[in-house]
């Protein structure tokens, strides 16, 4: 939400008060304050016409389905029973809270989210710190090649990673074997399958996020580094005391976006397992996968809609927790 706030004219230009985009602060204060209300000479009803296609499409294909979904969640909705749906109040939600499959999916989702988010942050920030260097040769080449994983489909990638993580002939097991580690059946184990899925997610997003961190690192004024150098700070100290504090808003942003995406993870487990149950013992069933299983395998649309509402609630709660924790941690850093 705070992304909008940054386009407001600065209320005094304090860097620490602006969420998400502190690097714009100096420029912002020179912008005319009337900007926020649009350009005076360009007004009138054109705006409604210009936004109309979006709003019409959005109301029909975005908002209406969400509202109708909330309605369905209170029914024992069966797509095969045409037109005759039974209202059952809160039963779907009550059943969900006692459904062990739901809790397994929730646990798996949080586990995969944690395993993919935190290593990814470390890798991305580290990569960005290297890419930021003025002495790096072939900067464009490195930036571009790190984005390659992000353009491919999860299906194609899941097929490759499924093979790489294979029990008998997978390359991961071969490499582990060099270190004397016995073969792991990645797909069958709970933690090991989560590792495989988290690896796929990290592989796909680490380079992309590195570019985001790089963009905000490049916006850090050189003077900060110069004066740190004069004070005798080593490269590592500059990173800890100059770079990281300046990145706090971007870290918050990437974490929240990553959380919203991470809590909805389904494509990787779906394609890795090849079915919507998430493995032989549901070891990598996730919340969204559970939703699709209920909706399109078991035809329990009311139940699935209830899952969707709970996912939304969970996403909002975790995002808020995330937001406050990173704010607090980052706030202490800058003091």
């Amino acid at each position: 939400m705070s992304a909008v706030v940054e386009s407001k004219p600065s209320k005094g230009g304090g860097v620490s008060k602006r969420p998400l985009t502190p690097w714009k602060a100096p420029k912002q204060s020179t912008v005319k304050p009337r900007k926020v209300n649009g350009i005076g000479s360009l007004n009138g009803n054109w705006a409604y016409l210009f936004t109309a296609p979006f709003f019409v499409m959005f109301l029909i294909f975005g908002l209406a389905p969400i509202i109708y979904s909330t309605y369905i969640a209170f029914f024992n909705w069966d797509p095969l029973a045409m037109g005759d749906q039974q209202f059952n109040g809160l039963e779907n939600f009550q059943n969900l809270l006692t459904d062990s499959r739901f809790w397994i999916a929730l646990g798996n989702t949080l586990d995969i989210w944690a395993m993919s988010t935190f290593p990814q942050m470390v890798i991305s920030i580290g990569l960005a710190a290297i890419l930021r260097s003025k002495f790096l040769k072939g900067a464009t080449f490195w930036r571009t090649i790190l984005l390659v994983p992000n353009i491919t489909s999860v299906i194609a990638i899941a097929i490759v990673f499924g093979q790489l993580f294979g029990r008998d002939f997978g390359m991961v097991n071969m490499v582990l074997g060099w270190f004397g580690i016995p073969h792991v059946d990645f797909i069958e184990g709970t933690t090991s399958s989560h590792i495989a899925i988290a690896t796929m997610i990290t592989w796909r997003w680490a380079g992309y996020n590195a570019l985001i961190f790089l963009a905000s690192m490049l916006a850090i004024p050189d003077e900060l580094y110069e004066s740190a150098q004069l004070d005798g700070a080593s490269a590592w100290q500059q990173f800890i005391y100059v770079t990281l504090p300046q990145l706090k808003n971007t870290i918050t942003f990437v974490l929240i976006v990553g959380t919203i995406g991470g809590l909805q993870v389904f494509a990787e487990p779906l394609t890795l397992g090849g079915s919507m149950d998430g493995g032989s013992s549901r070891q990598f069933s996730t919340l969204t996968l559970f939703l699709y299983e209920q909706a399109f395998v078991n035809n329990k649309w009311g139940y699935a809609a209830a899952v969707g509402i709970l996912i939304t609630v969970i996403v909002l709660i975790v995002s808020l927790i995330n937001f406050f924790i990173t704010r607090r941690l980052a706030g202490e850093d800058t003091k």
Partner: protein
Amino acid sequence: MTVLKLPTLGAAKRSPKHQRLNKIAYLLLALMAFLSVFPFYWMFVVASNGSDEISKIPPTLIPGPRFLKVVADVYSVVPFNQALINTAIVGIVVAVSQVLFSALAGFAFAKLSFRGRKFMILFVIGTMMLPSQLGIIPLFMLISKAGWFDTLTALIVPALVTAFGVFWMRQIIDAQVPNELLEAASIDGASVPRVYWSVVLPIIRQSAFVLGLFSFLATWNDFLWPGLVLSSPQNFTAQIAVSQLKASYVLDYALNMGGAFMATAPLLLLFIFVGRKLVTGVMDGAVKG
């Protein structure tokens, strides 16, 4: 800066000129670059060697001679050319429409003054936080009711314009188009559509192209929704065609990876030409938050 009272005075003498990038840094970059492209290479290696070669220890690491045979196998299972054409049609239509409508609405949100603007943009961002699958069942009902089940229309229409695109274009126009230019144009008597067409669009065309690319990639790679609404092979998109390979055989790795490679190769080819633009796009979007 108060944290930086550190006693290492000697380091201050080092002038930036002598600061070279560590060899370890290059090594790490090279490792990440290798990991980034290896899965693609591996796809091709497995597909061109056949499954037997892969089940050896140590496995073959170089491409073999059987790629064309695997391609023929893929064609015998699914009409892959048709799938590529379908995917291209959907991708291009969605990309063009996304750019067009997103830029239009984004311009209004960034530069025009109208009642309810603030509320509407907050509303758009708020909905971006909601999980996309929340409305998927009613959307499925809607598409079926409209008679679009098992047609490409089912893929195109819901994706014509999205909140993400509008928000992104708003940020871009806000950052790239100076108000003075718009004011000057309107003082010269240009109407709002004229300003949009002759002033705004030429300035943002690079970013608009990037948005189009991202929409195209997202459409190309989507598989859940197409998997739900498409049922006959002649309507499949490339990803659905690939997922059919898995269903047809019991884990024939060569066949599956062949299909995956064929569905990915067009994107890799495209990436060679537009990769740098995508990098710029990601970084631009990042600065705008």
